[in-house]
């Protein structure tokens, strides 16, 4: 069993109005050193596979087909063994 920790973020070229709004909120709280904020999604997916490379390829497939929209988003996957 593996636990995939997946980050889905907007591509750097895509404008992120949520991030801009959070940035404004942080500044108004006095966090003057904050320079930029990007908002993304974090997903935890458990996969019942024994081979790590198989698990990674299954998770990548999930990201390509559903979890991320390749028009605007990119993703990264961290895979850890999970006792179940």
């Amino acid at each position, binding site marked *: 069993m593996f636990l995939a920790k997946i980050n889905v973020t907007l591509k750097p070229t895509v404008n992120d109005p949520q991030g801009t*709004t959070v940035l404004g909120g942080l500044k108004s709280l006095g966090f003057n050193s904050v320079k930029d904020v990007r908002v993304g999604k974090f997903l935890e997916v458990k996969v019942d596979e024994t081979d790590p490379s198989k698990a990674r390829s299954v998770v990548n497939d999930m990201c390509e087909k559903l979890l991320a929209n390749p*028009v605007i988003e990119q993703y990264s996957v961290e895979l850890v063994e999970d006792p179940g």
Partner: protein
Amino acid sequence: MRFGILVFPGTWSDTDCHHQVSDVLGQEAVYIWHRDTALDGIDCVILPGGFSYGDYLRAGAIARFSPVMEALRAYVESGGLAVGICNGFQVLCEAGLLPGVLMRNSHLEYRCQWTNLRTERTDSPFTELCQPGQSLRIPVSHGEGNYFADKDTLDRLESNGQVLFRYCDDSGRITEPANPNGSARNIAGIINDKGNVLGMMPHPERSCEELLGSADGNLIFSSIINNLQRSASRG
């Protein structure tokens, strides 16, 4: 003509579309549940607005895996007419039947308001009864209608004449204040490269009687009916 209105869990504009097509325009309209796998005998498919599958993950992302979407893909490939409105537009983009994506509105607000749409083409099945450049008064109601595509895709849409509607002001000018959601190049509605699939964020079914403030939405469906009747009479 026979309109098929797709219904996903969370669709909410289906009865409004039914009312417009059947009560106002006198056509036959049937509901098609998202688990159905056939679109036989349908002359035009409508994907109505709403929040299919709660808009979980991304608007339209889950609906595209419904069984009826495979039938829709085959129907569209064989030249059938389809109109996606609001959430229906989002579903068509997620399904890859239209290019681009509808992002969160640039100001992050949900907008429910009247908009003016400039008709960019009148040689499409969806606008053939409109006057060139005609401004249609049709409302929007969405939080994620900010049309986005990369520059190459936008340029291709423009050069292929796939931009059908743009948000404009009362005088028909394409201005930033007339844009309710931050859409690239004020895009409100696009067609696919074959020209038989329309996606638009504004709701023509909510402007189908003067009592509602405008009946301009009827021009879109009347154009479709006109187009279908011409095709039928050609045999």
